[in-house]
């Protein structure tokens, strides 16, 4: 009897990482302590972005929101957090329109949920590094 392969059951190996520190590990020359320092700086920047955005939504200042979003892009690129970068792009696009602050608020909510997952992923990856 001829055996059949169900093509739909063949799963591709997917990259399920929320972030990837491999590039950063190279830049830091594998220094684990220093990697932790960089993650602390990233957290500070993100906290600052949350505060700025919340205040600017109330003040209806879309230019400052866009500027704040731009500032965190580089840090997110360093840890290759692509979903978060996508949210940042969405926020910046919404800032080009008038009266879309409720949408920005909504994206920010999603950003915060995703960032928690990214944080966990970063810490896991750092812990997995050999001493």
């Amino acid at each position, binding site marked *: 009897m001829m055996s059949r392969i169900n093509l739909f059951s063949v799963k591709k190996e997917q990259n399920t990482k929320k972030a990837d520190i491999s590039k950063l590990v190279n*830049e830091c*020359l594998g220094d684990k302590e220093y990697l932790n320092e*960089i993650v602390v*700086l990233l957290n500070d*920047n993100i906290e600052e972005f949350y505060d700025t955005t919340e205040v600017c939504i109330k003040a209806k200042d879309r230019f400052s929101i866009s500027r704040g979003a731009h500032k965190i892009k*580089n840090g997110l690129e360093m840890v290759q957090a692509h979903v978060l970068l996508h949210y940042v792009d969405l926020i910046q696009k919404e800032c080009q329109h008038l009266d879309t602050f409720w949408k920005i608020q909504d994206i920010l909510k999603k950003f915060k949920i995703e960032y928690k997952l990214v944080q966990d992923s970063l810490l896991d990856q750092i812990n997995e590094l050999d001493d």
Partner: protein
Amino acid sequence: MTKYTCVLIEEDRMVASLMKFRLKRLQFEVLHINNANRQTLASIKADVAVVGLHANSVTNLETLKEVRVAIGDNTPLVTLISNYRQRLVIEHNNVQVEAFLLRPVNLTEFENTIVQIVNSKAPSNKLLS
């Protein structure tokens, strides 16, 4: 061991921290300054200065001119730019810049540039890369 001083003017704390980390390995003392405390620059005697410019800022040229005046003509200046047009604007305005590096900065290239500049300035005290 010879110690060199590098003044780093960069708003992005993460980029500044990475640069600081790499330069410290090369016997550099790195003084990180942000735009708010730029007036302290004149009192520092540095071997090299690094200035990070940003794409959306309208005060880039003024910043660079101000830094050049503060550090004097003898201190080499390395500028981090976001696009090639920034370099053209700086060159057209005759601001003396020893090297340009395009963002996102490749840190190995950054290290090599700094070492090359410091070595060419003080050949008797050569720094190993």
